[in-house]
């Protein structure tokens, strides 16, 4: 079993305390995703606003028990994601900050681009987004049809459509993946400002995770300065999709922890709200508690592997993510079944958890895609077995 060190334990205690503030806001944000603007001073939200900004750009990190936290480590990010999702998954996703896009700027940005991006982030609470999925291509993102074409000496033009992009309607900045030429090496990522002419983001109404405000993005000849194209200093093989995959490998343990948080919230809801449990219910809950522990261990293992740059990291994270999305669905259904008929109406918070849980499957790759990735790791030897 993995045990957390003192530094991470201190962080876990603090984030658990912070997360208490979220639960009372959960249903408000579910009804009105714009409510996030009223809650920017909530401690966890203001932490997320700067989470992942590296020390050279963040002079003022959070200090807990004498330790500084920038959110750049994967293990601390999964600890935070679990605790915050126990508080409210919707609010975690609704927060401003660079979490998803920052990982890519880190992987693909040159010094100038990092400086520009992080100084914008540090200026004020700034939402960002990451646009990969298209209406006709989700899992098969490599076959995307959005194009990036040169337009004069120092500009490009972005043309196409993206879908299911979180936070794009409230964002100032984002990263868009597009194609410069046919083939797998023809994919590139660009930093864009949403104020650019031709950029529109229409909110989509969703069943759950409504705080995230998924959107449909239209890119109607958006002009992009050449210095906003990411990865120009990298080898051709390391730009585009390769970097996206590397970035997603780093984010995946956090998505798994997010699913774990939803599952744990459902479990704790039953403990808090059902005074008496019969033996069968008790047994089911004990079994669920064990499954939460098992998954948490796997997530920590994958996070440590990411932080240690182990080749198996992405595969371990795929295993954790596939398990987490399923457990989120199962735990929320299990929790509802501990209450009688009409539980979905009488326990709106639990109903919300069950709705939120359905979205985890699709975030950062579906269960099938994670399983295919895991299989690749197994047969190609990336997933080392002792």
């Amino acid at each position, binding site marked *: 079993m993995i045990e957390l060190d003192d530094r991470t334990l201190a962080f876990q205690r603090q984030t658990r305390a912070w997360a208490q503030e979220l639960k009372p806001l959960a249903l408000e944000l579910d009804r009105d995703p714009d409510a996030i603007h009223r809650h920017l001073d909530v401690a966890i939200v203001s932490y997320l606003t700067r989470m992942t900004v590296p020390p050279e750009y963040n002079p003022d990190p959070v200090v807990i028990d004498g330790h500084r936290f920038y959110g750049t480590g994967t293990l601390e990010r999964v600890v935070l994601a679990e605790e915050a999702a126990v508080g409210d998954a919707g609010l975690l996703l609704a927060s401003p900050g660079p979490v998803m896009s920052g990982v890519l700027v880190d992987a693909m940005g040159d010094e100038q681009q990092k400086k520009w991006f992080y100084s914008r982030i540090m200026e004020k609470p700034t939402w960002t987004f990451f646009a990969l*999925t298209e209406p*006709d*291509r*989700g*899992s*098969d993102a490599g*076959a995307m049809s959005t194009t990036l074409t040169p337009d004069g000496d120092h500009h490009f033009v972005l043309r196409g459509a993206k*879908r*299911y992009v979180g936070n794009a309607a409230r964002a100032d900045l984002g990263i868009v993946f597009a194609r410069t030429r046919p083939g797998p090496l023809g994919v590139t990522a660009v930093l864009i400002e949403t104020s650019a002419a031709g950029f529109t983001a229409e909110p*989509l*109404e*969703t*069943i*759950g*995770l409504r705080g995230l405000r*998924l959107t449909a993005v239209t890119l109607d000849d958006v002009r992009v300065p050449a210095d906003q194209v990411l990865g120009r200093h990298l080898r051709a093989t390391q730009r585009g999709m390769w970097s996206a995959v590397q970035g997603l490998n780093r984010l995946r343990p956090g998505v798994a922890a997010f699913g774990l948080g939803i599952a744990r919230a459902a479990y704790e809801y039953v403990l808090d709200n059902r005074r008496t449990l019969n033996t069968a219910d008790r047994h*089911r809950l004990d079994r669920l508690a064990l499954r939460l522990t098992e998954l948490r261990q796997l997530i920590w293992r994958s996070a440590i592997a990411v932080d240690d740059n182990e080749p198996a990291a992405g595969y371990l994270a795929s295993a954790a993510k596939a398990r987490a999305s*399923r457990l989120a*669905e*199962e*735990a929320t*259904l*299990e929790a*509802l*079944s501990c*209450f*009688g*008929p*009409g*539980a*979905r*109406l*009488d326990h709106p918070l639990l109903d919300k958890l069950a*709705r939120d849980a*359905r*979205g985890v*499957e*699709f975030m950062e790759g*579906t*269960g*099938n895609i994670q*399983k*295919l990735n895991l299989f690749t790791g197994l047969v190609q030897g990336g997933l080392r077995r002792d």
Partner: protein
Amino acid sequence: MTGRTAAADEWIRYRRTARHDGLVAALSLLYETLCDGAPPHGPGGHVVAPAGFVGADTGDVMATMTVEDGAIVASRSRTAPPSVSRTPWAAWALGTTCLRFGLSERLLDAVLAHLGGRTVGDARLLHQQMVKGGVAEAVIEQLEIETMLAGAAPGDLDDGVLSALNAQITRTDRMLLRLLGAVSFLADGPGQVARVSELIADVYFGPAPAGEHGGAA
């Protein structure tokens, strides 16, 4: 049950209407043909009904949900005792189960149509082996449920059996929703119908435990 079942009777109308015309059409048909007096309440005093139906929103309205073919109201009545409704419970329970099964079939149709029109590289997404396997898993569940419901008259299947079938329908729908992709997470598509279908089961039969079929697809 003998080797052959009686020809489909009126119960199949709920299922077919749900499959071909949608949730509100089927629930309205159920109300029109089975409701006597007030709509029947679930054991917790809750009602799920098409909006605007007589007696549908007499209690506290707890939720209104829009689906493809109309709106649905969920309410709870603290005052009116369930006995005000003279709707026969056994018929109602079988009717709602057939209706939910028809909605599950409609969801399968949506999966086949949607994935049939998508591609992975040059191949159809629907023809990826894992997808085929996932669809087949859901179809195995549906064939079981269909066989259990075939020829059933009110009272043939007791409440325990109907509860279990409803739990199985929920789990099957979850498999299909995962297959559909993120489109199933949108509030104006098949995923919303599945949400209301789960609510109908929750109100009349109690929430479905995750159960042993949850691992597939």
